[in-house]
């Protein structure tokens, strides 16, 4: 059982894929009882309002399942687009890269130090 889950999005998200991710992730969180989820979107270059909302939704869902979510590695262009779309992702924690995100999770969580993170690539 790992403390953190790492989700790396390495292809352009299309709507169906986002839905699958949402399903998989929530299942995985409840299965593993992870305390923290890192969503790495550094490879994501194009977002639309739907994907923006999915990111927001996924992190809200993880929070409901008692896992802190940190979105890491957002590209400048993506950030600008989301802001222009009015999706400011309130309540979602963010970090510049995976390392900083991990540090943030460790800081905010009172869990025993553990390094064997579960890794799931999409």
């Amino acid at each position, binding site marked *: 059982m790992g403390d953190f889950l790492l989700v790396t999005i390495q292809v352009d998200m299309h709507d169906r894929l986002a839905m699958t991710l949402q399903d998989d992730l929530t299942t995985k969180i409840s299965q593993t009882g992870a305390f923290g989820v890192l969503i790495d979107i550094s490879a994501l270059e194009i977002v639309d309002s739907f994907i923006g909302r999915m990111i927001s939704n996924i992190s809200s869902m993880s929070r409901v399942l008692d896992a802190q979510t940190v979105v890491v590695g957002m*590209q*400048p262009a993506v*950030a600008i687009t989301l*802001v222009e779309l009015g999706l400011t*992702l309130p309540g979602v924690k963010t970090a510049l890269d995976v390392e*900083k995100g991990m540090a943030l999770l460790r800081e905010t969580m009172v869990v025993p130090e553990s390094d064997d993170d579960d890794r799931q690539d999409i």
Partner: protein
Amino acid sequence: MIGGEAGKMALYQATQDNTKELLAEWVKEQMSTISKQGAIKEADLRDQCDTFLHLFTSAIRHGNTTDLRTSEWDAVLRYLNEISATRSEQGFSPSETATFIFSFKKPLFTALGKTYASDAPALASATWESTAILDRLGLYTMDVFLKTRETIIARQQEDMMELSTPVVSLAEGILALPVIGTLDSARTQVVMESLLQRIVDTGSTVAIIDITGVPTVDTLVAQHLLKTVTAARLMGADCIISGIRPQIAQTIVHLGVDLGDVITKATLSSAFAVALQRKGMTISRIKAQA
């Protein structure tokens, strides 16, 4: 009939026959009106006038004095373009540029008068024709002049935009963006992009936006600032806004702008102190104060 074929031919004849006198008179006329002495040499001016006169004469040869869009006028217009653009760049005033064409009227009318001294209807008709065509050419000169000016202004604006958005690194992981001048949509876009790009490049987690040099903050500017802050937050960097002057603080509150949970500081140094604290760094004196 005013403006008839006779008038057109008369105009051509008069111009053709008196080229030398026209040129001399015209140059003299212009030299007396141009206020910036030495801005243009008499020889250069003579050259310009001479070229124009040649082009003008060949353009009106076939009696087309009404439609400037036809091919006969192409060369004339192109030459005027050139003259007007150079004058605009050399800093001539609009009226001085327009004078180039309008000062041609007097010598031309004199020449017409001399040629048709005995024929009043022909004189009237030719005068009318020449006035119409010269006015149109004059207006065209003004159009080109303004267009050149606008190009210069646009270029300067672009230069300013590039110059005025430096992102500087204050310490490891701390960036500062001193904004100087009014923030409009286009500039905010540039500011936002360069800040976010630098955040990625340097891996900084704290960015200080210093608005000491922003003269006024209205709702639009505040909104732009908030957008930048939010975008930076989405990427995982915190923004601190500093350099808010008392008047601006008043304006922001009076406008009802909600800066939300953005950290604001009065001065850049206090913002820097907060940033250092966040990063777990301090500044200490290594020598006792003298």
